[in-house]
């Protein structure tokens, strides 16, 4: 079971896809997930991250089976 990655809104449009998959390595962090998948794409400022649908810090470690999401600031209401 791999890590499932989701992108939303303007970030998804910019990247050109809504989902990715990645096998976890020991100690892989949220920031590491991004850098592994998008080594040439600097993270847009203000991007937020979630792990398993909870807001996450960039230093949080992830493991196989987790769902990691990246998205811009939220604008509901």
């Amino acid at each position, binding site marked *: 079971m791999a890590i499932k990655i*989701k992108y*939303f*809104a*303007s970030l998804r*449009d910019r990247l050109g896809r809504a989902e990715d998959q990645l096998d976890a390595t020991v100690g892989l962090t949220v920031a590491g997930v991004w850098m592994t998948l998008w080594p040439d794409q600097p993270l847009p400022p203000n991007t937020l991250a*979630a792990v398993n*649908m*909870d*807001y996450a810090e960039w230093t949080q470690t992830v493991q196989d089976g987790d769902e990691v*999401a990246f*998205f*811009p*600031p*939220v*604008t*509901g*209401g």
Partner: protein
Amino acid sequence: MLIEVRDTPLDPWVELARYQHTLSALPGQYGATAIFIGTMRDFNDGATVQGMTLEHYPGMTERHLQRIVESATQEWRLLDALVIHRVGVLQPNDPIVLVAVWSAQRVAAFAACRWIVEELKAKAPFWKREETGVGTRWVTHNTPG
């Protein structure tokens, strides 16, 4: 308590009346009902807006709305609460969100209703994309309350 995210039209007045009828255990207990209805404008950030698409993160959105309402219920001892938020395609003047809270007294009702709205805008993963006369654009920030 009812939390709902829907992609079909929302008539907040119908929803309020319907929900109020379900509060059969509460009559006599609540002295205050505070409601907030957010409606789509036809202008934003200096442009005329003709339409809007609201995207969300299914699952995470509902979870955060639930947490926000539960926190408010504890903090202000609410008797009940209702939150319905639209996603999908909206036109100007369409209601976007309904927040209603019931409490014993008005101070709690006003405070909790406002707090839920502000928390929702800050934490619930929704994103607005506007259609203006010159194309579409993602809304990048909330307007100050």
